[in-house]
């Protein structure tokens, strides 16, 4: 059995759990709990350990989809989760107060993993708050010294969006992959 892994990360409420659920072939396993800290203002339930979904490629190959807990105090889990991962899907909630701060934080937290693998960035909830725009994210990324990265507006509930975001991740690893 050949096993692969894709990691989903981002702040609380960005849509990681939802994204995994739309891509997964199994009912995702989540470790959501009732929030007891400041997270409760944003979500009634929050992921405290991780989300897990599975894409079956064929009888002998599977892709595991892991979602990191959004709260920073659980970031001791991240190193464990990223071991052997193909790449990172970062979801940023555009409706949060300072989405760029989230961007800086997660890019920095996963820097070594991203350098080893690849990243694609999905911006969620742009229908709720249209600013900053996608162009602004590109400017920030460039200013931070990162190369050109795939950044796209996504709705985590939409399979097509999440599929395209993951495709951009995989093609970034190797654009020559063809049918």
């Amino acid at each position, binding site marked *: 059995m050949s096993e692969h892994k894709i990691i989903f990360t981002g702040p609380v409420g960005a849509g990681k759990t939802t994204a995994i659920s739309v891509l997964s072939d199994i009912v995702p396993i989540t470790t959501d709990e009732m929030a007891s800290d400041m997270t409760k203002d944003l979500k009634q339930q929050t992921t405290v350990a991780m989300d897990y979904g599975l*894409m079956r*490629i064929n009888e002998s190959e599977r892709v595991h989809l892991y979602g990191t807990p959004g709260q920073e105090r659980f970031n001791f889990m991240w190193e464990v989760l990223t071991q052997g991962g193909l790449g990172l899907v970062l979801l940023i909630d555009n409706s949060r107060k300072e989405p760029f701060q989230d961007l800086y934080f997660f890019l920095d937290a996963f820097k070594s993993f991203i350098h080893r693998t690849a990243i694609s960035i999905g911006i969620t909830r742009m229908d709720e708050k249209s600013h900053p725009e996608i162009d602004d994210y590109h400017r920030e990324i460039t200013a931070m010294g990162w190369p050109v990265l795939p950044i796209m507006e996504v709705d985590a509930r939409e399979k097509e969006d999440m599929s395209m975001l993951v495709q951009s991740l*995989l093609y970034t690893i190797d654009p020559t992959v063809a049918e």
Partner: protein
Amino acid sequence: MLFANHEPMGIALLGLNGKDQPMMEMFLKRYWSTQCIVVPDHLAKLCILDLDGIEGNRLLEKQQSEYNDRPLIVLSVHDMSIDGVRVLRKPLRTELLKQTIDVCRSEILQDCIRIEKSKPEAERIIRVSPTTKPAKQQGLASEWQYQSSGENKRRLSVPSAASQARFIESTCGKSNRKENDQPVIGKKSVFYNHESNFQVILKNAIEISRSNRKPAHLVFQDGKSITILPNANQCLNAISDSKLKPRCLLKLNTDQVKVVSSDYSESQLLLSCDTNPQSLDALLWKVSLWSSRGRLPIGTVEDVNIGIRQWPNLTRMMAIPEFIRIAALWSKNPISLAKTVEFLRIETGYVYAFFSACHAMGLIQFHSSYQQHSNQTDQLSTGVVKTGFLRRILRRLQSM
């Protein structure tokens, strides 16, 4: 103006105690997120007042004398009725409070429209452009559909193989795989004159509108129009895809398409139209693809290496999987058009169409020297071990 550029509606919370105030704020945030924000009394469009506090009656009197026209929701444990005021009995039922706020929002919105329409500028814009109000979209392009939800931003996958083929032909040109295994840029048919067609008219109109920060109307001879809303980065398009597409292939002059500046504000235009707004970038992108049909803008130089400044927002634009591959390649290492075709082993038309659309959007970066890419592409080629399973995962994703 209220709601302009998604400006939230301000709500004043008066008379609530230290415990109730944050709960009410959380309630507003939960249901209306960024659409409603708590603001000081004098900035509010709507006021929610707790009458049972010590200051309750005084605050009510003040509201009635100073903000007589402003909607007011009063909360009280007592059953009462006050003229012109909506009274909600405690304990509050969240559904009823939500409905009441929604009704108030709707009334405020209607008032705004009425006030804006009564302004004298309204006459002027109607005279200048009788087709300002965009007509309802006349059906969807058969080969490429948009969901109506999410402000028409959503892209859907192509419905069938036949329609996919039609879509590819209309954007990337006819398949000529055999002929173009070795692409020849020197051939005249490979180029199109983007300077004389609708693509450049649209692009210029968007640039002017953005620099003036004022809406503009692109009005065709038959009266159909596209309204550009530069601040919202959206447009109101009264022309269906099936009618717009052929116009992208015609040579047009200024008599056939007029660009008229609008004195209406964006919010007025948005409120008065019955068309879902579309992204301006997505419109320019698809117009560029239809204009290109797998050809290059005239004057494109053959040997220049090409990269992209940033990825196009492909989830909200017409795209085929090959566009993601080209974007991934060009974002990593600059490479010429011919080498792109060769390296990715895809149709020349896909590369040319993608180049044309990116070029129109200002995303292309030219690199004069024919450097380095070979090293990086060699590195990519060594990823053969990974290629097998990546291909299978991609196939799985594309079949979703």
